[in-house]
């Protein structure tokens, strides 16, 4: 197979080309830094055009992101980033739109819009920084905080049941849903690249450590000693295997997943990951797997093709023009029934 060489006069982009002149104001040690860095790397690698890219965010620590990317950007209002992104995409389908949000922004105040931007397949890349806490408002529990979580607003423990972002995305008909961790930079870069290349809305949950208000929330998944037993890297077409010695797997028992030892069970009996299957049940089932009962899957849960919303909308306009001809304003204003006063 021969690949045409890239024209040599194209500027080679570096991650630094996407930086703005603004000081980055996240707390030192915050997981957001890593996400920003990997995003810039992916952008440089893919040669993404800054002038045709727009970052849109809501409110929260993560939502400062647009200020640090030298593209177009809107730091909007709490929970509503999907609405601005949708309107912008409708007006300018050719733009490359990324949305940055958090667990509070997307799942609490913005829960409604979150569902709709995904189900419509608006063709926006959504990065949800999940740190299981409200950072900007200084440490209240969030919709992803575990039950019993003690915070300033829940001194006796949070009574709420938490939600799982990937489960919601899949239930909302996501055409692409994935998960990564701030600390595993190589894998994060891989997932972001996959999201960037997906045609349609791509949803990525990123486990992000808030070292100020919820330090160590994902330690189980990042600690070298435990992470191979607590996480499972998804690979399309491969059996679900995990563990330090790749000695454990996930098997389907009736309708439920179960952890089995490969010392006792044949690898052929394991669940095979299929991110392309039109039916979202497998992806949903994987999204339900939670530490400590299961390893938590990382990678791409689902990557299927749906027609993009903006194309469907534009097609209707084209059809209307084909049927009725391009609008004649004078005719429109005149209407069907007129009378003349001499």
């Amino acid at each position, binding site marked *: 197979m021969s690949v045409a060489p890239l024209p040599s006069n194209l500027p080679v982009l570096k991650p630094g080309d996407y930086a703005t002149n*603004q000081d980055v104001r996240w707390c030192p040690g915050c997981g957001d830094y890593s996400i920003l860095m990997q995003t810039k790397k992916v952008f440089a690698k893919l040669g993404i055009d*800054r*002038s*045709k*890219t*727009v*970052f*849109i965010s809501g*409110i929260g620590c993560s939502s400062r992101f*647009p*200020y640090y990317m*030298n593209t*177009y*950007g*809107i*730091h*909007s*209002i709490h929970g*509503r980033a*999907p*609405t*601005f*992104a*949708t*309107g*912008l*995409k*409708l*007006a*300018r389908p*050719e*733009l490359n739109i990324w949305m940055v949000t958090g667990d509070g922004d997307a799942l609490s105040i913005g829960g*409604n*819009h979150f*569902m*709709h931007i995904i189900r419509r397949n608006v063709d926006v890349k959504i990065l949800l920084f999940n740190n299981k806490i409200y950072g900007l408002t200084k440490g209240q529990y969030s919709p992803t905080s575990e039950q019993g979580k003690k915070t300033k607003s829940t001194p006796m423990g949070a009574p709420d049941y938490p939600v799982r972002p990937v489960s919601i995305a899949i239930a909302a008909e996501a055409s692409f849903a994935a998960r990564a961790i701030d600390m595993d930079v190589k894998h994060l870069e891989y997932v972001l690249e996959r999201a960037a290349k997906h045609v349609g809305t791509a949803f990525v949950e990123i486990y992000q450590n808030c070292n100020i208000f919820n330090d160590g929330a994902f330690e189980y998944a990042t600690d070298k000693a435990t992470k191979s037993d607590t996480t499972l890297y998804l690979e399309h077409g491969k059996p679900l295997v995990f563990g330090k010695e790749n000695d454990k797997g996930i098997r389907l028992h009736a309708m439920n997943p179960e952890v089995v030892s490969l010392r006792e069970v044949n690898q052929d009996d394991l669940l095979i990951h299929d991110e392309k299957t039109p039916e979202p049940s497998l992806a949903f089932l994987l999204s339900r797997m939670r530490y400590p009962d299961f390893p938590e899957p990382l990678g791409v849960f689902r990557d299927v093709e749906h027609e993009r919303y903006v194309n469907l*909308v534009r097609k*209707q*306009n084209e*059809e*209307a*023009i084909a*049927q*009725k*001809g*391009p*609008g004649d*304003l*004078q005719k*429109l*204003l*005149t*209407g*069907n*029934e*007129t*009378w*003349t*006063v*001499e």
Partner: protein
Amino acid sequence: MTTTFDPVQAPPAQSNGKTVITLPSVTVRFAGDSGDGMQLAGTQFTDTSALVGNDISTLPDFPAEIRAPAGTPAGVSGFQVHFSSTDIFTPGDAVDALVAMNPAALKANVKSVKDGGIVIVNEDAFGEKDLKKAGYAVNPVEDGSLKCYRVIKVPINKMTTEAAKDSGLGAKDIDRCKNMFALGLVYWLYGRPMDSTLGFIERKFGKKLPAVAQANALALKAGYHFGETAELFHEQYLVPKAKLAPGKYRKITGNEAIALGMITASKLADKQLVYCSYPITPASDILHELSAHKNFNVVTFQAEDEIAAVGAAIGASFGGALGSTGTSGPGLALKAEAIGLAVMTELPLVVIDVQRGGPSTGLPTKTEQADLFQAMYGRNGECPIPIIAPASPSDCFNAAVEAFTIATKYMTPVILLSDGYLGNGAEPWLIPDVSKLPRITITHPKESNDASGFMPYKRDESHVRPWAIPGTVGLEHRIGGLEKQDGTGNVSYDPANHEHMVRTRQAKVNGIKPAGTDILWTGPKKGQILLVGWGSTFGAIKAATLELQKEGIAVAACHLRYLNPLPARLGEILKAFDHVLVPEMNLGQLRMLLRSKYLVDAKGLNKVRGQPFTITEVVHGAKAVLSGEVEIAVKQDSTSLDVSTGGE
């Protein structure tokens, strides 16, 4: 299809010896159950009256519940149309002829009928059960309680069934044609041609449901011929053509006019219109109308909620399109935060509020003007927004074009305050010549405006920032809801910068020049009393002013189309009159603005009954002020109102 009518005024039948009386103007109201097709009958009567050359003004009045219990007063739907041989400004104070399809419709509407007026009742719907549902103990048609009217009993159900029996339709479907029978009868009574409605029936049902078309046409004709031949009417009435300004006219409602105005603005600006809305009464028709014109490359977006609608509109504006959202009062409340973002980011946006009775869900299908304060002040922080209020249904077209002109010229959200009465009401519209409309000029910068790099908040002499859009190389910039440093647009918490920005945003709005007429004036420039109005009260106030002038009173009407900023010369205008009266369908919102800004002792004439002012109410209010009365409650048959001072 364009049908240009040559108005047919000569009554078709003189032969049966009925007297023909010519009247300057007439008000008819069709009333029935919400399933009786009264809105359709009223609309058809309006269309025909417009086509024969009358001036028209309409007042549709329907229940909030789609399925209110049949036959009860809660389920009554009405449509009033005023048609005239002279210029008219309102849908008419008192009704000359009422069609009551059942006892509930009679009960809810008969008080509006003039003494000696005609009341046509469908006697087939006056059974014991029907009377009970309407809350009548005895049949009002029989007990003499209607003796001041000319009550005409017509067996509308029976006659409709008889007329359409050969159409092949079932009894239930035939019954649904009784509105056409009633319409036919009223057509005869006022000597109107049936052609337009027959054409409508054919277009609507002809191909798909020929039996339905036939039944409706038969019922219409039967109603007409019944009037001609039955011995119930001894007179027929004619209302000659109105002497409107020469030109080509059509009928238009306020909501249609807004939609057409938006499409026109998008053509004049050569920009894509992106209209984002969530269904809400009485604004949904704007979304419907625009959705029907996708061949103008209009993008319509039915959002998941009111906030998403305004957010999407702002997103579209950021992309360089004409972003707009439409709603009613409760929706405007939900959009408040996002509108604040549009003020902060200084992006163009047109927000349409077709006001209805409030607070909360209030009276969804009834009109009110109580969102003026919400439009002015209903956001956090100092958040000024220009406000335009159309004065009549057709004026909604101009207001929409002006709103986009100002939004794009000054990089600001604009609120267009319509109301339910304007939105659903109709009037003749002198169709504008597109080639004569002024273009809307918009420029997007292509190059940086500063040696140090692009400055998104570097302003021109009117304090307007550049509208740089994504896709432009070198002008990448970030905007948002946090306070901006003037010039660079970078986030700034500097106290002096914040004060500077708050004052600059205010100064920008204060300096806005109107894009159309800011004041509609009637009468002399000084005198005893000035009536100041805004929005849909225009017609009633103007007509009342003309009546008062006939009585020798030195009165003028000053109707404000621009409410923010108020016209610069308004302070002087107010001082030239002994008294200032502000009729409003709220408890005195404009009055309070005028009192606080101009220290003028403006009095209020305030009505919040979900119905527009009648001319008489305004006349009485003005006279009460002139006679020095301070607190008067004027009671009328159908309405009551209060004159109060601005002090409370």
